[in-house]
């Protein structure tokens, strides 16, 4: 479907873990909340990964850890060949230019007391881009790239004067303005109207092609993944339970959780109301002090005894299509 991406690896995440220590009261016991548990991920240039999971899956924490907003507790993050796992934040200024973020809430993501132009100028000012004329030029260019024209009009407006879709474009412009190589988009369209979502996703697609960007597109909306990314990673309770090329995973889902997700999502079909969906009951598990077992086992319709006792290992089933599930014994 998409032209083959260049083979160079931009980002390699190897068995990455991120834990949080949770304390109950001043003298209570300390629990370990394993938000990200030994995640492996590979992203090449000019490629996109859809990171799919529900709330509590750890997908947002994974994104934040990759951006080094958090320091990992285990594993490695290697960006353009450089190991940035434990680099102190002061030495990561170059990384802040290379990797950026687009968030879910367009209104919350903008400081409401700045104009659009000033919002876009901020990253440039932080990185010492002088003089002011140079910054404004880049601001206007960024606004053009996200098609907020006429640029002079938008530059002088305040965030509350724009619609959600327009603001999200500003967020994208802000993510582009330092010429990054990687953009992590955390649910960039879930707060937007249906008709606007496609517009934004198409824009991201176009920017990926034009600017040689790579994306990690975090979402819970499986249906959009086909339209945007080449790879899909399914995340559950801190683990990547299945990963592979988008069409392969969607056409041939291996993990029972992926199957459940696909079952759960309706297409517009008048027959839907006549049948019940096959979905497992219950809620995603707590990430606190997880047992050494498959995290989906309590809800899994196909759970075996082994699933409750041992954490499954990742297995490659088709080329590049991996799954973490005891149903697929190597």
């Amino acid at each position, binding site marked *: 479907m998409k032209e083959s991406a260049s083979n160079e690896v931009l980002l390699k995440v190897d068995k990455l873990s991120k834990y949080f220590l949770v304390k109950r009261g001043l003298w209570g016991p300390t629990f370990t909340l394993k938000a990200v548990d030994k995640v492996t991920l590979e992203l090449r240039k000019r490629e996109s990964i859809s990171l799919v999971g529900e709330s509590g899956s750890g997908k947002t924490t994974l994104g934040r850890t990759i951006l080094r907003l958090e320091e990992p507790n285990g594993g490695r993050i290697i960006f353009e060949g450089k190991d940035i796992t434990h680099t102190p934040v002061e030495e990561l200024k170059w990384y802040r230019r290379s990797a950026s973020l687009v968030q879910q809430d367009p209104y919350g993501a903008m400081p409401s007391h700045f104009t659009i132009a000033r919002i876009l100028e901020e990253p440039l000012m932080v990185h010492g881009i002088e003089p002011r004329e140079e910054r404004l030029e880049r601001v206007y260019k960024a606004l053009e790239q996200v098609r907020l024209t006429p640029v002079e009009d938008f530059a002088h407006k305040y965030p509350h004067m724009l619609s959600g879709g327009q603001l999200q474009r500003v967020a994208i412009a802000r993510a582009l303005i330092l010429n990054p190589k990687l953009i992590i988009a955390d649910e960039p369209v879930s707060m937007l109207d*249906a008709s606007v979502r496609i517009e934004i996703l198409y824009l991201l697609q176009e920017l990926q092609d034009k600017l040689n960007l790579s994306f990690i597109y975090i979402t819970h909306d499986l249906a959009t993944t086909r339209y945007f990314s080449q790879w899909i990673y399914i995340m559950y309770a801190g683990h990547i339970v299945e990963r592979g090329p988008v069409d392969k995973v969607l056409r041939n889902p291996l993990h029972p959780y992926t199957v459940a997700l696909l079952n759960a999502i309706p297409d517009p079909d008048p027959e*839907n109301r006549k049948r019940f969906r096959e*979905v497992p009951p219950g809620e995603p598990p707590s990430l606190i002090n997880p047992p050494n077992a498959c995290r989906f086992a309590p809800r899994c319709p196909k759970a075996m005894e082994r699933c409750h006792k041992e954490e499954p290992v990742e297995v490659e089933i088709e080329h590049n299509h991996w799954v973490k599930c005891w149903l697929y014994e190597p």
Partner: protein
Amino acid sequence: MSSILSVSNLRLYYRTKKGPVKAVDDVSFELRKGETLAIVGESGCGKTSLAKALLRLLPRNVHTYEGSIVFNGTELMKLSNEEFRKKILWRKISMVFQGAQNSLNPVLKVGFQVAEPLMVHYGMNEKNAFRKAEEAIKLVGIDKTFVNRYPFELSGGMKQRVVIAMALVTKPEIVILDEPTSALDVLTQANIMNLLKRLKEELKLSYIFITHDIALSSELADRVAVMYAGHLVEVAYAETFYREPLHPYSKKLMASVPTLRSEKKLEYIPGTPPSLIEPPHGCRFHPRCPYAFDKCRRETPPMFSVKGELVRCWLYERERQ
């Protein structure tokens, strides 16, 4: 199927400094017994205002509130506020609000909150009300021990079930669901939809299902009404709507829904939804409509009846029956 609710020319305008906001502007539709009518539209189209208009949950700044709502033969608009509150509100028609799981009272036990509508609307004593509340909680698939828990102890999905229990405890005939699964995870959403499907059968309910998610609407809808800028622009049966919508806006909406199971090219609608204070002259969709012609700019089209469907579009003027 007989008509349980018949709405004609319903109008709800709000008073604001900049002029009246025409949130619900001349809306007419029918709901038959045991049927689900889905009302779909994007944010700002007026669908939540429509729900509030039906249940007379009006804010202070109401500019206009008129029209006809006939429920089982009774003209609701003729009832006084007192009568409406006593006879209709929650007894016959109840509602699941958008984001309701976040507006559960955090300091009251869940059981009490489900029992409350009974005590308020039926004057039931606490013991009986609690018993009925337990039944309702079981009905929505929550173990009855949760009656004594507080909202913070429940997950999002369970809270939403509690809210549904609150809407059902008085055994209403019609339930208005306003985005009942927003903010819920995919799997939880599917579970809730399964629950709603089951309850509809078991309790013989009629639903008005308000959502912006077209794919989700097909989970319950027998008929679909599309709302745009305060108007209903199309009312159709599910079979025809999801396969071949008539109104240009409906077509564009359907084209913008990404599907898992079928191949299609996605389209988006350029422009932004219009302001409800000064909607465009003539057909409200004409500035964004690829088929707009001269008449669309001048005159607002009425609802035309086409093959058993209603469409508010000049393109169908000649095809009407």
